[in-house]
């Protein structure tokens, strides 16, 4: 039972980062129908920038968080302005490939700046780990869970209570109708990239003290987050949360009870199974998805 609890908590921790990545996918997918495969790089950027500001520039903690979020948002903005916006084709294939290309550029820059070694920094608060039912849980775990919950609530409030958030939702329902009522669709697409970069970076900054961060972690994180988004039904915010946590827990159980090398295969097997049997996600409506066409 103790071991089970231990696995459960470590699964919830990584799972919440997958959930954040999955939500990042959804934000951009809803605004543009693009699958942004550079989503994992945003997480790596969050972790490595946080290290850079904390350890290398000796900036105080809260300023470092602020600066990391700001820089990540800026990177999202630059990505959208330099690659997605000039393309403006309807060819989703080309756009998705551009995001792959951008992710390689980001990896190249990260490797140039940070090299190949893994980075880490001190947990957000000092203190002894908590013992719950015999399982030892680091305090940072609660930070990750808390930050994820705060992100979820923040995004919910943003999309339901603010004008910009509502405008972004309008674009995802029907871009033409949205632009007819005066919503600047192109600016909303820009916002979606900024927002999803920030969400990814926050996840990266929170998880780095636990699981370390290195320049080439992006693609695997993107695949996991994407599995989370697909599992919940692409474009459904709440689905990604359930998907991410489920994948995290299953992964940690597989690594613990079966074989650690198969850890990464779990999410992929789930991904294929979902694509084959329930393409609209666990909670989605298959016929609607098929009619919509994307």
């Amino acid at each position, binding site marked *: 039972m103790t071991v089970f609890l231990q696995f459960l908590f470590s699964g919830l921790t990584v799972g919440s980062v997958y959930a954040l990545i999955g939500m990042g996918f959804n934000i951009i997918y809803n605004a543009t129908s693009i*699958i942004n495969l550079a989503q994992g790089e945003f997480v790596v950027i969050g972790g490595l920038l946080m290290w850079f500001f904390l350890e290398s520039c000796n900036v105080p903690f809260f300023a470092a968080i602020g600066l990391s979020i700001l820089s990540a948002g800026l990177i999202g903005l630059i990505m959208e302005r330099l*690659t997605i916006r*000039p*393309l403006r*084709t309807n060819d*989703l*294939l*080309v756009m*998705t*490939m*551009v995001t*792959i*290309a*951008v*992710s*390689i*550029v*980001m*990896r*190249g*820059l990260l*490797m*140039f700046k940070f090299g190949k070694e893994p980075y880490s920094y001190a947990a957000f608060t000092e203190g002894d780990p908590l013992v719950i039912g015999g399982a030892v849980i680091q305090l940072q775990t609660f930070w990750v869970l808390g930050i994820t919950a705060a992100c979820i609530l923040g995004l919910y409030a943003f999309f339901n209570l603010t004008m910009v958030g509502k405008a972004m939702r309008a674009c995802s329902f029907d871009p033409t109708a949205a632009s007819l009522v005066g919503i600047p669709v192109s600016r909303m697409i820009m916002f979606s990239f900024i927002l999803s970069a920030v969400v990814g970076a926050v996840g990266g900054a929170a998880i780095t003290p636990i699981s370390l961060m290195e320049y080439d972690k992006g*693609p695997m994180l993107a*695949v996991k987050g*994407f*599995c989370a988004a*697909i599992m919940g039904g692409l474009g459904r915010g709440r689905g990604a949360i359930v998907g991410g946590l489920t994948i995290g827990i299953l992964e940690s159980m597989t690594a613990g009870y079966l*074989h650690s*090398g*198969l850890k*990464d*295969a779990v999410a*992929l*097997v789930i*991904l*294929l199974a979902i*694509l*084959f049997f329930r*393409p609209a996600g666990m909670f989605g409506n298959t016929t609607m*998805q*098929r009619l919509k*066409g*994307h």
Partner: protein
Amino acid sequence: MTREHGIALLILAALVLAIPSIVTDSYVMTLMIFSGINAIAAIGLCILMGSAGQVSLGQAGFYGIGAYASSVLSQSFGLPVPACMAGAAIVSALAAVILAVPSLRLKGHYLAVATLGFGEIVYIVLNEFGPGGPSGFGDIPPLSFAGVAITEPAHVAWTVWGFLLLVLVFSLNLLNARPGRALRALHGSETACSAMGLDIVRLKIKVFVLSAVYASIAGSLYAHYVTFISPSSFSFFHSVLLLMMVVLGGITTVWGGVIGAVIITLLPETLKSFEELDVLAYGLILTLSLLFLRRGIVPIVIDKFRTSERGHA
């Protein structure tokens, strides 16, 4: 196959025959062999993207199956190499059918996602359960035909580029015959195609299987040439490289795959001077070619040539 394609094929065939007299440096010869191997896989992806409008992010998976299956068959069972390559191609084709049937029934780019997952799974399985694990295994029998081993680099180059010529002839004929016409019609209007009674899904599945078989043949050639393989050669990065070749060369003609493969295979040698910036340079080249050479090098060059020809007449 049109006359232009025929002439291009003859020129290529002449060049292939002349390889030993053109290429004297053994390192350049190695690069030529790798270009040819990559080109075979790239042509498959080219047809898939250009004709069926689908993308695969997991070609390295089929490439890996081709390499591992063929090596294991020849090493452990002592079967002749051509038979092993055929066996590996069958395994890849089966995997492709299993992937394609469910994902192509859905509209949109579900195949891309499925292949991404598939490629990663193959990579993990090779890492965990493949012979030698992450460090791979060696002593793979070299290429051979009718019991005669082909080890001389020039002969290997002939074999590889010979395979490439066969693949080109087959593909060009296919694209010019009924399946090709159907695929071109598919590009025009999917609805009109189904109204005419074409089974679109079946056609797309066939194209995908073809691309998997090409990748598998390329993988087998690679394994029997290098005689040592490890999972790292079949990672997601290789799938992206193949994609890059096709995008850079141009997806509208199979020649794009060939030109793209040669450029991308030779590129790391030119980028070596950038040292640790080579990943960055790779990414920038891909990004810029997507932004500015969206149609690919070969189609652009052909268009330029045609307009200048018309200008003279």
